[in-house]
Every structure is written in structure tokens, then in C-alpha cells.
């Protein structure tokens, strides 16, 4: 038995030893991607990777970054914070990545963000929107290039408060931090844009809820004029589809309806829904068309929707920050990134230096039965909102300065 012990443990150590070799080339620079590549959220992870790949292909086709070809090292965080941290360590310590990119999960993002001061590399959050990542748990190694929850719902509040006469809102969200953030920040934002708005109901349901009928009954009974929901994935599709089947016709303001996967399932049921994001396909301007066409070219025929677009923009912004820094040194990139303005498809995107939360305009879109992008109903933009209108102050976001 003791021989088993000895053989087993020494064997394991030997394998570790063999695998400990670090190999990287002087002509390339590694970008680490720590995304969900297995399980229920794999689709989200894949889409994020498509966006990152398109930005990297584009940069490489134009001579790379500071004379080096960018290579992606992709790891599966399995949607778990502890695995995410383990993989982030691998990407930094073993693969010498200059950045770790993750966007599909706020939970994983929060955990990776906390680990970065030890690793002394940048965590680029391209699409995880939980407030705490750049708010309460801020540290200088984390940069977020997408909207946060507060900004996202503020765009919706701006639309419903200023562009409609609806004054009774029902908030239905998932029972975790994201859902609570959506409810809390929407209530605050709608008071700013339409103080006479009444919140007639507020519900938090479990993630992956199957039956929305009881919630639809409550919404109908409340007399709400419209619904606001930060639901995503099947929780959004089911809410939209089931509510329409049960006869609820009032508008649903959503944050993740621009996911073409969701729209492919919801289809006509999404009629009457309103969506907000930092960019939504179909903006009628030369700059926006150039943005979409460039992505289309470097992504092998895809369109920059939902998290694909966010990951694409985030990676392009990071590449720009490295160019500005003229170095792959983390401290220099941080300095260059802070306060940097990048020319986005609908206007400038500025990285706020204090909390590293990008400030940007937003797009509001409504249901469209036909678009040039997909062979199922999607969305069409109806208005843009300036960055100043949706900005959430440091105090409002719960920001705290970083202490080592």
C-alpha cells in the first residue's frame, strides 16, 4: 500500500514537473481569454470569443500590435469563479498573457477581478455588467468596456420616462445580484426622468425559471403599463413567449433582447418589446455601417450583435490602449487606458479614470419583423441617447477607492 502511495504521489509530481515548461515566442503577444466553453452558458462564451477573435484578426491583418502578432490563449472557466481564478493564473503565470478577457459571467468576472492585483495584469471585462466589479470592489487592474447595470437600465428609463406616457412599471428580474441591480437602478433612474412613475410590482424569480404564468398574472393584475426585465437567456425568452401567449400585450423593456439566439426563439412574441444597449445593429450612419461591415469581414460573415459586439469593441479598445502605451507593460497600459477616448460606432467611448468604467452613448431599439442580418425577426434602432444622459456617478455606483 505504501508503494502505491509513493508511486502515485511521485508520479503526479513528475507529471506536474513535465508540464511546468513555459513556452512563448518573441514575435507574438498572448491575449488570454477565460470564457465559458462548457455547460449551459457555452453559447454566451462562444459569442464573446467570436467578438474577440474578430478584433484580433483585424489587428493582425494590419501588422499586429507593436510589431507582434496577437495570439489568443483560450481557457474554459466552466462558469465557476474558482475555476476562473485558476485559469486566469494559468493565463498569466504560464502563458504570459498581457490581458485576461472575460465577459459572460459577472460572478466569474468579480472573482477574476479580485485576483488581478496579485497577478498584476489587466482583466478586461467586455460584457459582465454587475455594478460591484468597477464599483464596491474596484481595483486598478480591472477595466470595463461595456455598459454597467446602472447605465443599461438608465437608458431604458430615459426612453420610457421621456418618450412615452407610461407611468406604471412592473419590475421582474432574476433572483441574484444582477436582477437586484436592475431593479434598484431602474427605480432610481425612472424617478429622475419621470418622477410620477409608480412601481406597481417587483418580483425576483429563480434563474432558469420554467413557469412564468404566476408572474404574468401578477403583472396583469397590477395594472402595469409596461414591464422592465434584466432577464437573459431562457428566462428572457420564456418571459416574452409565455406572457404573450397568456395575453399580456404591454411593452417589455429588456437589456438582452439583442441576443439573436433569444430573438430566434421569441420571434413575433417580441413585438412590443424595447431593448437598450451600447450598440444595436442597423444604425443608419456611415460610421455604423463601416463598423458592421468591418466586423463582418474579420469574423467570417457574422454580425456584431449582443455580446459579440461588446467583446469586439472591448478588445479593440484594449488594443488601442496598448498602442497608446507603446508597451506591453501593465502599468503603462493602465495609464494609457485611463481617460482614453475611442471612436465608437455611435460616438466616443471614454474610459473613466477613477473607476475604469467606460462612458458611452446607448441605443434604443424595437422589434423589427425583417432585417438584413437574420432570417428571423430582430430589432431596429429607434433612437440614441448621449453618454451624459445615462452616466452613473461614482457615488451612485457604490465605488470605493482601492486599498492594497
Amino acid at each position, binding site marked *: *500500500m*505504501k*508503494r*502505491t*502511495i*509513493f*508511486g*502515485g*504521489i*511521485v508520479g*503526479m*509530481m513528475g*507529471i*506536474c*514537473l513535465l*508540464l*511546468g*515548461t*513555459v513556452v512563448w515566442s518573441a514575435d507574438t503577444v498572448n491575449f488570454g481569454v477565460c470564457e465559458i*466553453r*462548457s*455547460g449551459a452558458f457555452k453559447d454566451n462564451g462562444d459569442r464573446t470569443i467570436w467578438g474577440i477573435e474578430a478584433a484580433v484578426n483585424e489587428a493582425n491583418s494590419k501588422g499586429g500590435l507593436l510589431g507582434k502578432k496577437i495570439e489568443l490563449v483560450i*481557457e*474554459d472557466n*466552466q462558469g*465557476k*469563479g*474558482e475555476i476562473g*481564478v*485558476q*485559469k486566469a*493564473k*494559468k493565463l*498569466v*503565470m*504560464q502563458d504570459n498573457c498581457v490581458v485576461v478577457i472575460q465577459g459572460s459571467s*459577472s*460572478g466569474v468576472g*468579480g*472573482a477574476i477581478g*479580485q*485576483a488581478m492585483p*496579485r497577478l498584476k495584469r489587466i482583466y478586461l471585462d467586455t460584457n459582465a455588467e*454587475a455594478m*460591484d466589479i468597477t464599483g464596491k*470592489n474596484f481595483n486598478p487592474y480591472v477595466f470595463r468596456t461595456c455598459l454597467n447595470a446602472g447605465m443599461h437600465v438608465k437608458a431604458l428609463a430615459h426612453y420610457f420616462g421621456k418618450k412615452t406616457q407610461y407611468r406604471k412599471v412592473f419590475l421582474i428580474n432574476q433572483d*441574484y*445580484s444582477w436582477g437586484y441591480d436592475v431593479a434598484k437602478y431602474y427605480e432610481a433612474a425612472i424617478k429622475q426622468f419621470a418622477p410620477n412613475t409608480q412601481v406597481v410590482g417587483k418580483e425576483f424569480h429563480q434563474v432558469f425559471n420554467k413557469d412564468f404564468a404566476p408572474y404574468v398574472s401578477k403583472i396583469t393584475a397590477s395594472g402595469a403599463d409596461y414591464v422592465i426585465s434584466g432577464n437573459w437567456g431562457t428566462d428572457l425568452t420564456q418571459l416574452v413567449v409565455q406572457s404573450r401567449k397568456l395575453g399580456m400585450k404591454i411593452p417589455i423593456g429588456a437589456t438582452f433582447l439583442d441576443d439573436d439566439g433569444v430573438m430566434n426563439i421569441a420571434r413575433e412574441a417580441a413585438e412590443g418589446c424595447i431593448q437598450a444597449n451600447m450598440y444595436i445593429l442597423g444604425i443608419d450612419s456611415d460610421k455604423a455601417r463601416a463598423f458592421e461591415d468591418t466586423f463582418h469581414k474579420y469574423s467570417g460573415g457574422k454580425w456584431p450583435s449582443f455580446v459579440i459586439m461588446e467583446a469586439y469593441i472591448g478588445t479593440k479598445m484594449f488594443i488601442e490602449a496598448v498602442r497608446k502605451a507603446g508597451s506591453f507593460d501593465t502599468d503603462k497600459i493602465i495609464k494609457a487606458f485611463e481617460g482614453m477616448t475611442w471612436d465608437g460606432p455611435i460616438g466616443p467611448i471614454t474610459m473613466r479614470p477613477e473607476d475604469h468604467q467606460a462612458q458611452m452613448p446607448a441605443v434604443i431599439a424595437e422589434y423589427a419583423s425583417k432585417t438584413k442580418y437574420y432570417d428571423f425577426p430582430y430589432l431596429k434602432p429607434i433612437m440614441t441617447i448621449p453618454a451624459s444622459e445615462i452616466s452613473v456617478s461614482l457615488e451612485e455606483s457604490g465605488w470605493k477607492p482601492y486599498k492594497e
Partner: protein
Amino acid sequence: MRGSRFGWIRIALVILVLLVLPKLISEYRLNLVITMMIYSIFALSYNLLFGQGGLLSFGHAAYFGFGAYATVILVKQLAMPLPLGILLGGLAGAFLGLAFGVFVVRMRGVPFALLTLAFNQLIYVTAEKWRAVTGGEDGIAFIRPNLNLGGWEIDLWGTLNWYYFVLLVTLICVGCLWYLTLTPLGRLNLCMRENEDRARFIGYNTYASRLIIYILSGFFAGVAGGLAAAFQEFVTTTFINLDKATDVLMMTFIGGGGTFFGPVIGSCALILINDLLSTWMERWAIVQGLLFILLVLYAPNGLSGLYRSIRERWAKQKTGATQP
């Protein structure tokens, strides 16, 4: 006598390898070894019930997670020194072991497994819903504090010092668990696995004995949870969920519950396989599942059992070949 001396030499050699390991492998691999050591404690604590006690539990993550939350809350909120926080995390696991053990050790087989599962889910749902204390699904983040030994401060920020700290705790825990197997209680645990009625007939209080084993198992799982939380610098509901409960079962099964160090081998193997496969391929979970099925079919006693049977077969062949 001679065999025993060789045994000690082998153990000393393993410790020596572990001591010089930071010089031999990369920092990332050292992080993996830290993970392996922490999960080795967790798997060994589980093996007190599964391998040595013959009790299949689906709820061991509850003690791991409870210990993790207790450590983080005590260290973060009460600024408690980390070693004390981890020790109290272990005691929290032991306390939970007592609270649940009173009910579950009366059961055997399927009812035991289902009850442990139910208690695990109870703790999981509590952690998920009691956001004010546990932070819900977002968990609690904290900074691992330095170690203060009477004015002499040891920096636990770096991987190296943290590795030696975890190594020390692991050696203490493994030593205690090994010693337990040599005590009358440890022997009785094996005896109860083989024939509990007989143990009772010869005068042992099997209920009390099983309860003590259950509490000790909870203690070491709590220590492992505290270490894991300090390593990750955060704790969340994934520390208590069913994935974690099945992970420890798989670690023990893969290594082999029939030997003391089988779970250690299992935890090292599973962590390594998981890490390598998920790097090499997208559908790694399928391969991991297939490997597990093959192991169940062809090596039901785990890797240590497989090694032992190969060695025995080889020895038999050798003996047969030398016979006239």
C-alpha cells in the same frame, strides 16, 4: 521492522520532494499543487465516511462550504488571524457535522445518501438566499491577511509562502487522519463498515462512534473549505453546491477509497485531468466522463486498486516463471 523503516523513508522522501517542489515547477503549477493539497484534505475527510466507514454521502460539500464561509466571515469581519480562522472554520464544519450527524448516522445505504443530499441542499439554499450574510450567489471577497507570529510577520501574498503554509496545514491534517486510522476508533470505523451488528454485539456503541467519525469528517472538510476560500480569496455558493459534493466523491472513487492515500491520488488526478483536458479541448467534459466510466468498469477500486492488482499479477507471474 525493516518494512516500517522503508515506509518512513518513503514518506520523508515525499515530504522532501514537496519541500523542494517550488524550485522545480512553474508558479502556475505550484498553484495547482496547492489546489491538490487542499482537495486532498477534503477527499481524505470524505474517505473517513466513504472508504473507511462504508457510508456513501452526497452532502459533504455542506461542511466544506460551511467551513469556508465561517473562515471568510471571521477573518474579514472580525479581523481574526488566518490560522485561527481556518481552525474555527474546521470547528464550524464539526459543529454542522454534529447537528446533521445526530440524524444521518442512524441511517444506512440509500436513506443515508438521500438525507445527506437533503442537508446539503438545505445549506446551499440558505447560503443562496441569506444574501446579507453570505452575499448570495455573488459570494464574499476578501484579502488573505499576512501571518503574524508574535511580531514576526510572514507575507502570505506571494505563492511561495502560501504554498508552504498550505503544505504545513496539509501535513498536519494528513498526519492526524493517518493517526486516526491507527486508533481504536479508526479500527472500529473499519469494523462497522464490515459488520456493524457484530461491532454492536461485542459492546461498542456504534451510534456514538459513527457520530464522532462524522463530526471529525466535518472538521477536516471545514478546514479544507477554509483553506480553499483563503486560497481563492472569496467564497460563493459553488463551495456548497452539488458539483462540489460530486467532485469529492469522484476524487475518492478515482483514487480508491480502499487505501488511505487513494483519495489523495484521486484529487491530484482529477484536478490535473480537469486542468489539462479543459485546456486542450472544448468537449473535455465528455472525455472526463468516459474516463470515469472506464474506471468504474475496469478499476472499481480506483487508481490505487488498479496499481495494486497490476503489481500483484506481475508478482504472481514472476513467481510462476521462477517455479520449476
